[in-house]
């Protein structure tokens, strides 16, 4: 039994993150960047996304079709608890076509309490009509560090 106990504890620890439900919020914005940057008011449980910088791109060239188009998001954890954050960004043209879509967020560890971080959201394969963007939606997904 004693031999089995550490295995059971280990299994419980490994399973713990999946048991935590992810909070989520989505908001739609008009596409109105100035020099690529657009301020947002977007917050979930004291984590705020207050700026996004759009970087329309083009194919890398020499036959490579991937693009360097991206957006950079700025995340502030104004809360008291470390968090894992994921952000999805989807840009639409006036007809409702998706002109860019991707996600970014915490790669390793946590966005610590009181810290600011930036994350890149890449748009490698659907980017050719990004200049026609009219609106975009942002979804923030978050999991708190278990206490």
């Amino acid at each position, binding site marked *: 039994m004693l031999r089995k106990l550490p295995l059971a504890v280990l299994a419980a*620890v*490994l*399973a713990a*993150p*999946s048991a935590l439900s*992810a909070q*989520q*919020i*989505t908001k739609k914005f008009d596409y109105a960047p100035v020099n690529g940057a657009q301020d947002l008011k977007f917050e979930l449980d004291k984590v705020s996304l207050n700026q996004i910088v759009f970087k329309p791109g083009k194919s890398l060239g020499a*036959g*490579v*079709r*991937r693009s360097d188009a991206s957006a950079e998001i700025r995340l502030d954890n104004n809360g008291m608890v470390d968090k*894992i954050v*994921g*952000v*999805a960004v*989807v840009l639409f043209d006036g*007809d*409702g*076509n*998706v*002109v*860019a*879509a*991707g*996600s*970014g*967020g*915490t*790669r*390793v*560890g946590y966005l610590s309490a009181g810290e600011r971080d930036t*994350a890149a959201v890449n*748009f*490698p*394969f*659907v*980017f*050719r*009509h990004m200049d026609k963007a009219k609106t975009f*939606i942002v*979804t923030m*997904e978050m*999991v708190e560090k278990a206490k």
Partner: protein
Amino acid sequence: MSLRRTVLVLLAAAVAAPAAADQITKKFDWSPVGGLQDVNVEVQRVVVGQISFDLGSTLKGTPVRKSSANAKVRVDNNGFIDTEVGVAVVVFDEEGNVVATGSGGTQWGYLNKGDRAHYTINFPYVYRNFDKAKTFLITLETKEKGRKAPGPAPTPAP
């Protein structure tokens, strides 16, 4: 018209003709069977015919947060010209939250006429509510190589 002038005119026309780029977006209800769902999204004879979803997992017990969640799309070029292809997938829950999104497509060169390819679309950072998916959008973006080739010639009348 001299031969030289004719060549110049043809060359100018070829340069002026932009490589056609087109796009379409379609919405589907989420109803995969065994992860697979047939769809039909078509632009300029390039067709997304099937999508398979993988809810993925993370490296539990490690600090790495990226997920292996992904979708694979099957794309057929039934046209007459080689084409660059991009596919975006956006998955929503019933409240309109994005539960997964990303893009995939031609990495290098073209999807040649008559060929089939499978592209992987990764969902590395937003995936934790993927199991609540209700609808999804597929956008197919194409850019043809050079000018659009003419279709097959009509059968001559007797």
